[in-house]
């Protein structure tokens, strides 16, 4: 099982994810520079947090044009796992791999804090080790994490169980308190909170391990089925 972390010039949570998988779980993980062509060897691709290309116009708007992202799109279309956290989530919506958009936080401020997020659906590759309704304490750090989408999209998200996480106390104005969603096929997931920041006992919080462990468990299961 191999994890690949896409590195854009302005990524800055790439190393956090790397160490979460490597030091926290002993998994095989590699960085992938944004002009790489082939990513076939990877089972799960991570779009990490940061400011991929400075994020000046809209967060995540430019990253979709990187060379590697064509392969990433194909990877997702082939049903393989693709995860975007924070800036990665913004990139996924900009690329229309996930519905909706992320706009400025309601209070117009960047917010860095640890918040409670509720697991709405534990039947997914990203939440299978969680209990439904379980509240995880996960750090957030974003200025534009306010999830918006039209009525129809929200309805679909709800009906299809695509809402994976909601905020226990909404910090940023997100509609339906949305903190993380997946696509209909359940192989692409985006979330604003940073599970990779909560995988180390020394940092005082290990709730993120539930999410990483879910992914690992899912991939293990898939490999056994093959």
């Amino acid at each position, binding site marked *: 099982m191999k994890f690949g972390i896409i590195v854009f010039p302005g990524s800055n949570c790439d190393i956090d994810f790397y160490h979460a998988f490597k030091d926290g779980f002993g998994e095989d993980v590699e960085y992938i520079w944004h002009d790489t062509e082939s990513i076939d060897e990877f089972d799960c691709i991570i779009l990490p947090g940061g400011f991929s290309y400075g994020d000046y*116009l*809209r967060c995540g*708007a*430019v990253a979709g*044009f990187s060379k590697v992202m064509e392969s990433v799109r194909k990877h997702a279309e082939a049903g393989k796992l693709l995860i975007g956290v924070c800036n990665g989530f913004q990139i996924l*919506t*900009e690329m*229309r791999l996930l*519905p*909706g*958009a992320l*706009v*400025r*936080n*309601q*209070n*117009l401020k960047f917010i860095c804090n640890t918040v409670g997020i509720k697991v709405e659906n534990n039947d997914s590759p990203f939440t299978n080790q969680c209990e439904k309704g379980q509240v995880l304490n996960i750090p957030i750090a974003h200025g534009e994490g*306010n999830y*918006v*989408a*039209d009525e129809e999209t929200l309805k679909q998200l709800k009906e299809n169980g695509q809402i994976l996480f909601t905020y226990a106390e909404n910090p940023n*104005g997100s509609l339906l308190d949305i903190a993380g969603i997946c696509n209909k096929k359940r192989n692409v997931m985006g979330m604003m909170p940073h599970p990779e920041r909560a995988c180390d006992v020394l940092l005082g919080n290990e709730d993120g391990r539930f999410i990483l462990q879910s992914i690992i468990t899912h991939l293990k299961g898939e490999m056994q089925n093959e």
Partner: protein
Amino acid sequence: MKAKVYVTLKKSIADPQGTAIQGALKKIGYPNIEEVRIGKLIELDLGEVSQETAAQQVKEMCEKLLANTVIEDYRFELE
């Protein structure tokens, strides 16, 4: 050829920045303000291109990058 692109949030999308500015304006003595919406103004210098090419290019740029059509509308002027 120069272009001015105006990108505005769709009516259905909340605009917290606009709301905040409206609040601030009320506080400093303009209670009559009924609405404030914040958009972007992007000024482009396209170099030496025909009006036609320019129009087409700018439209493409808006669709691809300058606006996120999920939440934003755009219009532009050439001069």
